[in-house]
């Protein structure tokens, strides 16, 4: 197993990773499981949502209360535009940080680079490991939704689930790569986590609030290109 930087990076995750998967499946599963209840009380919830400030709806990836009450809109809002994507993003950030900043922080970089491997190889293999494990995390969402879809009759399409799950990988890798880059530039672990997480949260708010505020509306072109609301992009 310990035959390359790529494999070692995955090996490093062998204990914690299963819990990321469990968490992701649980969030997705629980969200979908609530769908029938939500539908039964649709009238009440609809009224509740109508009274919410516009910004709140926008933040959680629903254009209006109506979108939230469709199956795809609900899953998008609860999984892809919020908690689920956050899990994927923070997982990718943790791997992107560990790659260089973590290695520097633990002072193991010297002894690693004393081996005859080029520095770019360490970066590329760390990135590949991050991409692989992030993809599997998104695949867990994909499988959960594919299995749950017919059970609760939530009306998701195969193409929609697939596209949104794939979008989740790209979204998470954007921020994971940002962390990898900051880590490579600074070598400082807490700074890397702070800036990458801060950027994630700022992007989330800017993207959510941009439709409501004229002066920052243009930023949506940027944030949307990150596909922060992948299901809306896709479904």
């Amino acid at each position, binding site marked *: 197993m*310990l035959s390359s930087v790529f494999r*070692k990076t995955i090996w*490093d995750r062998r204990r914690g990773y299963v819990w990321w998967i469990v968490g992701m499946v649980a969030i997705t599963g629980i969200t979908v499981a609530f769908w029938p209840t939500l539908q039964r009380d649709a009238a009440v919830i609809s009224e509740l949502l109508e009274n919410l400030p516009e910004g709140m709806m926008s933040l959680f990836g629903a254009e209006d209360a109506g979108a939230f009450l469709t199956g795809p809109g609900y899953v998008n809002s609860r999984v892809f535009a919020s908690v689920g994507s956050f899990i994927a993003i923070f997982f990718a950030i943790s791997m992107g940080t560990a790659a260089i900043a973590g290695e520097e922080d*633990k*002072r193991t970089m010297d*002894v*690693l680079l004393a*081996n*005859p491997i080029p520095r770019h190889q360490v970066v590329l293999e760390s990135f590949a490991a991050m991409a692989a494990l992030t993809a599997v995390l998104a695949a867990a969402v994909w499988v959960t939704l594919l299995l749950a879809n017919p059970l609760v009759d939530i009306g998701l399409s195969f193409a929609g689930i697939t596209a949104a799950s794939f979008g989740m990988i790209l979204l998470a890798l954007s921020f994971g790569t940002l962390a990898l880059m900051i880590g490579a530039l600074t070598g400082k672990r807490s700074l890397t986590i702070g800036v990458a997480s801060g950027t994630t949260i700022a992007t989330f708010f800017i993207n959510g609030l941009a439709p409501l505020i004229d002066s920052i509306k243009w930023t949506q072109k940027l944030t949307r290109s990150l596909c922060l609301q992948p299901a809306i992009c896709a479904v």
Partner: protein
Amino acid sequence: MTPAIRTNNLTKYYADIRGVENLDLEVATGEVFGFLGPNGAGKSTTIRVLLDFIRPTTGSAEVFGLATTADSIEIHRRVGYLPGELALYDRMTGDELLRYFGALRDVTDLSEARRVAEVLDLDLTRTIRSYSSGNRQKLGLAQAFLHRPELLILDEPTNGLDPLIQQAFYGLVNEVRAEGRTMFLSSHVLPEVERIADRVGIIRGGNLVTVASVADLKAKAVHRLELRFGETVAASTFEDVAGVRSVTVGDGGRVIDLQVEGSVDAAIKTAARHELVNLISHEGDLEEAFLAFYAAPGEEQRAQ
């Protein structure tokens, strides 16, 4: 013959802070070279330039004739390295670390590393997290020896090793020498370098003070003798004795501290004429032993 290591006017500054200045060093293949200096003198800076972890501000360095900045991968292939501030992957076992680094070097035969671990009495089945600092150091040495490199660059190799294990390490050094391989090791402990190196370079304040064979240095080494007498002894008793450089009297004339250069023979014979209760011989450390000799005249006071 191409030297194993050569630095040409090597200077490294970290922003405004001095690392090393105008260092010209040459280590021949097949020799064991001790790089001696107090902490912060620039030993690790020099070593890290050799491995291309940091780049010279001016000047250059070569290993086996290869420029450190251009051919670091090839250099790494031929060099085994122990960092001064060693950190290893806590969650691996010793054996896993050796397998990982072996794989990165395309070395599947780990017998040499395992042999070194055994010589140093290290249990490779335990996780690194559970290792004492001495055990980590042993593993650091084992991974440096792993691929039987032509050149071993070891930064403070005996750090944290207990005396018995240090002896075992000296045995490994002798093997390296006997096989005609080269070793460059740094230390701040004079007796150690004296014992294992062929030649010594002394660095202080970022400058190479002198390079000399161990035999030459031994002749000048300074010991501190602490003599406790059962009677009062006058300082003047020792003042003209061969090798004695300074005499300090304490406890009303019952304790005498001597700085002795070279052989202590004459000093001991003089002391033995009085009722000697106890004798402690301190191996001269770097500051005491060398800096007084090699310091610039203006700095002599501070060195002492």
